[in-house]
């Protein structure tokens, strides 16, 4: 039932991209997003597509996984395409059917914006597919830690995120178990009216909350008994270090930038 919730979408294989510094991955993903917005015409997506293909190849990600990341987006994609196609501005009509008219500009925009959306998601999913959520949080903490100067609680925020992430699979498992246990007593979670179904959730939610509070209490106790006192003076087990492969990745991103900018200008 809930058994196959994988958190985020981490795809566990060994690759140079998996081993990259998460901070570099986050920054490069931001750079990639900027880059996608700089693309000026549908043709400009060719180097972007090549770059995404190259990265997913280097990360050992099968095409199926990459396409799966687009699935939650399919409705948005269809809307983007259809709205731009039929209600776009412009005067060069391709054809007209009653009040619906398709213009050349509309078609152009429909393709342009759909591709932009596709590559934004595909590009950023390379990061989430190759980085475990906790590592990602680690990277994020390190990136925002300069903000500590203005009293931004970087460590506390990261710790909260890490704990939340850590407990999502646990609670999902727990929810699965409770659902099964209540099903074994004849509970029915899948049929009935909306009202009945909402009511049917009580036997799931009450034990789940009880268990979440119990776990929170236990965790707080365990952290305290190991003298957790917040981020002050705390060292890390896995120190983040950017290396050669991160440099290579950064250079390749710079290359993509150059190509995209040149194409926007001259093509």
């Amino acid at each position, binding site marked *: 039932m809930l058994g196959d919730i994988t958190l985020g979408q981490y795809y566990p294989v060994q690759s140079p991209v998996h081993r990259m510094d998460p901070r570099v991955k986050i920054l490069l993903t931001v750079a990639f997003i900027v880059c996608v917005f700089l693309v000026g015409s549908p043709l400009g997506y060719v180097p972007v597509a090549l770059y995404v293909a190259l990265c997913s190849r280097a990360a050992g990600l099968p095409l199926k996984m990459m396409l799966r990341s687009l699935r939650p987006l399919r409705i948005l994609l269809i809307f983007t395409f259809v709205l731009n196609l039929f209600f776009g501005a412009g005067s060069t009509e391709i054809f007209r059917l009653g009040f619906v008219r398709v213009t050349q500009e509309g078609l152009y925009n429909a393709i342009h914006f759909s591709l932009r959306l596709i590559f934004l998601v595909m590009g950023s999913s390379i990061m989430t597919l190759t980085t475990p959520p906790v590592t990602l949080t680690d990277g994020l903490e390190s990136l925002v830690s300069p903000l500590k100067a203005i009293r931004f609680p970087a460590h506390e925020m990261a710790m909260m995120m890490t704990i939340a992430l850590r407990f999502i699979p646990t609670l999902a498992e727990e929810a699965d*178990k409770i659902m099964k246990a209540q099903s*074994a007593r004849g509970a*029915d979670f899948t049929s009935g009216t909306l009202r009945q179904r909402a009511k049917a959730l009580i036997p799931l939610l009450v034990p789940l909350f009880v268990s979440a509070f119990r776990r929170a209490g236990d965790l707080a106790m365990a952290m305290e008994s190991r003298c957790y006192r917040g981020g002050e003076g705390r060292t890390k087990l896995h120190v983040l270090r950017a290396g050669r492969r991160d440099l290579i990745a950064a250079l390749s991103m710079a290359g993509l930038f150059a190509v995209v900018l040149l194409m926007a200008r001259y093509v």
Partner: protein
Amino acid sequence: MPIKLDSLSHTYQEGSPFQATALHDVDLTIEDHDLLALIGHTGSGKSTLAQHLNGLLKPTSGRVLLDGQDINDKSTDRRALRFAVGLVFQYPEHQLFEETVRKDIGFGPRNMGLEEGEIDARVREAMDKTGLPYDEIAEKSPFELSGGQMRRVALAGVLAMRPRILVLDEPTAGLDPRARDFLLEDIRRLHKGGTSVVMISHSMDDVASLATRVAVLEKGRLVMQGSPGEIFSRVEELGRMGLDVPQASKLRHLLFDAGIELPECYRLEELADSLADYLKGGAEHAG
């Protein structure tokens, strides 16, 4: 109402990188009036097997037959199946949710569509069977009870459906010795009353004192089955699988090494009796 597992296999998350085979070609029959103990190391597939018995998990291949009828067949009434095969999960007290003990135990019967009078009768009966005083705790919140009592409320919640087969996943895990003895006594009484029982256990002493038959799982395969005597005499094989033998067996071996030979037995009470006989005999010899 026998349950027959026919070359049952189960693979979790088939086709994903997390794929894991939990059960492999298991053939096992649970006869009427059996008290079958399912033992095996952590991760050997015991819980997975248990969840196939009432159709919560569907086999990847193979069949589960209840009275000769495939329970995963479309024509099978799934809810009726859940009521016939009562499954008590590990730490079942974690599934309690109602405001009162009475309502929580009545959850199953209410789902069966019974009327209030019948529900109440079944709640009383189930509480009686599990040694819970109705007048004292029926109107209490289940969250106010002790751990052992909560466990028994959860068990009563399944018994109130009057299942013909009861499946228990580690019923005594985490209980103190007294609560554990109470619970084992409940299970023994239920079995005597005609309910078939399947019990997953890590405690070889529980198994020795209750089971009529023992099945051993290792890495998803059924590697042994037989009477407790047959299984526990294979000490070395069990040891290789990381499984223990009952304390009585260990003690009997120690006594044997000390030169005291006693007949085979697996329960401490029996061992105590035969040791008493031995000592009496010894005294007579000396006298």
